[in-house]
């Protein structure tokens, strides 16, 4: 417990972490507000159309008669959900592939890394567009879209985890663990995994922001999630296809853009400052060696 407090105190010395943490907390509260929303996220013509921001409708209403603020709470929740699903599944693949190929090495390592490299060099965006065009209905559920994105994003992180495992594997304490009669599974779980966890954590965050970006890109092209279900991507796509700017409803367009930018900055700063904190050399520069 005392250690956790100390870790957070060190982390909060970095303004980027502080800003990112507060922004994320804010967005999390926003997404939780969706559970008390007075409006249905999908139905249209629930409120007067095209009202500017006011006390009653903080972010205004759109041309379809929906409250932008309450829709946004659903959008943030759904986007975060897709991001977490993607990051979760791609982490599972990346951890298994990274640890197996790093620890076992040899032919298995070469085979797994070749598969990974192959998915890495694919033009992911084009492939994703083609796949979600073909599997139109299949890709509309959150879990399926998450799985699809996860399948194309594990390779980089598997390589990062593998390289970490490679360096830890050669250290003597792993040999001592072998000598102490621990099974391979136990060595991986107890001796290796704790050394790999920081990498897993930072790549998790990076993967989340990548997934949100991909979802927005696909939704903008009219692919991926059902356009009536609010996510950051579908909100943006709706606003653009319904000519929000021509109608003068800038708040309709601005809400998802500002939120997405805020989310990206928060996730990016979080991952940068955490990975800097975990890298001892960079940390000494920031915190100072004496403290």
């Amino acid at each position: 417990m005392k250690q956790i407090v100390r870790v957070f105190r060190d982390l909060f010395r970095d303004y980027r972490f502080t800003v990112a943490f507060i922004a994320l907390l804010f967005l999390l509260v926003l997404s939780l507000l969706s559970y008390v929303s007075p409006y249905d996220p999908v139905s249209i013509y629930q409120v007067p159309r095209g009202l500017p921001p006011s006390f009653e409708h903080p972010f205004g209403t759109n041309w379809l008669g929906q409250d932008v603020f309450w829709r946004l709470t659903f959008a943030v929740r759904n986007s975060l959900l897709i991001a977490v699903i993607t990051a979760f599944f791609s982490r599972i693949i990346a951890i298994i592939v990274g640890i197996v190929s790093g620890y076992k090495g040899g032919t298995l390592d070469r085979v797994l890394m070749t598969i990974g490299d192959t998915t890495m060099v694919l033009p992911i965006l084009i492939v994703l567009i083609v796949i979600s065009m073909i599997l139109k209905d299949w890709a509309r559920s959150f879990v399926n879209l998450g799985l699809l994105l996860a399948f194309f994003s594990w390779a980089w992180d598997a390589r990062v985890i593998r390289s970490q495992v490679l360096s830890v594997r050669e250290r003597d304490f792993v040999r001592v663990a072998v000598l102490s009669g621990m099974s391979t599974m136990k060595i991986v779980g107890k001796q290796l995994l704790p050394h790999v966890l920081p990498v897993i954590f930072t790549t998790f965050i990076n993967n989340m922001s990548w997934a949100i970006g991909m979802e927005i890109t696909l939704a903008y092209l009219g692919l991926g999630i059902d356009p009536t279900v609010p996510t950051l991507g579908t909100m943006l796509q709706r606003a653009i296809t319904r000519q929000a700017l021509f109608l003068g409803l800038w708040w309709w367009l601005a809400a998802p853009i500002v939120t997405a930018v805020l989310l990206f900055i928060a996730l990016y700063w979080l991952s940068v400052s955490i990975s800097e904190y975990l890298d001892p050399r960079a940390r000494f520069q920031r915190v100072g060696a004496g403290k």
Partner: protein
Amino acid sequence: MEDILILKNLTKVYSIGSLLFRSKITAVDGVSFSLKRAEIFTLAGESGCGKSTTAKMILGFEEPTSGDIIFEGNSIQWWKKRKKDFLRKVQAVFQNPFESFNPLLTVDDIFFETVMNYGLANSRNEAEKLIDEKLQLVGLKFEDINGRYQSELSGGQLQRASIARSLLSNPSLLIADEPVSMVDASLRMSIVNLFAKLRDQLGVSVIYITHDLATAYYVSDRIAIMFRGNIVETGPVDKVLIDPKHPYTQLLCESIPDPDPEKKWSREITVSDTEYEEYLKEGCRFAGRCPYVKEICRHEKPDDVLVDGVLVKCHIYKK
């Protein structure tokens, strides 16, 4: 007495480079020796001569390219299927005490793991007693390591703890890979004395890998001098180090400074930096530095010759 460990023509070849431009380095080249019960056997030699690779092959961390390892009458392949029994009998101590313990786990964790995995105790109390008993052998107490992290102990304490851990399962063979090179002089003696005590009281055989000839002379029964993957001289330690036969051993012994300020080094000590070439060389690998080099040395590999109870790999002694 029966031989506990026999190495027959053990060879390890590493290939380096890409698929097309591949070259091979023979790190260990036809090493053979045998080890008796309750004996301290020293493997000595300069850095990169294949001492540690030999140790790793015995422990099963590296696969030998060719050759046999026979432990307690059974080959290493037979033991491979009984890995746990093998590791219970063969334990090791490594060079760097700071690397021997996981920095993210407490030091006592690996002790309890060893006790649990080999079923050495039935309850936690019993385990603690056993661990304390082994730690006492190296002058530590259970309280010294309990709940402490690696960073909270000194290098000497860690190295002693590392030895105590290796003794938990009462091994019959202990492989000590440069165990004293990172501890101070006084601790060095007590660790070396501990090995002698293990040999005399518990009948443990020790393979003591070192480049420190002084402690090797002090503690070991027999010694093997390695050079570039070959064992160039094997025999009782007082014969090998007092009256060295092989030119390389002579060079090694001469490079130990005398504790007499008046005495100067008798000969220029030259250290070759052609390590890579020496590994690839035909014939005797020491030929490039040997003062007694003959024509035959450059073409033909020397065989082991028995001179005065010492096995020497040199053409000089060939009849």
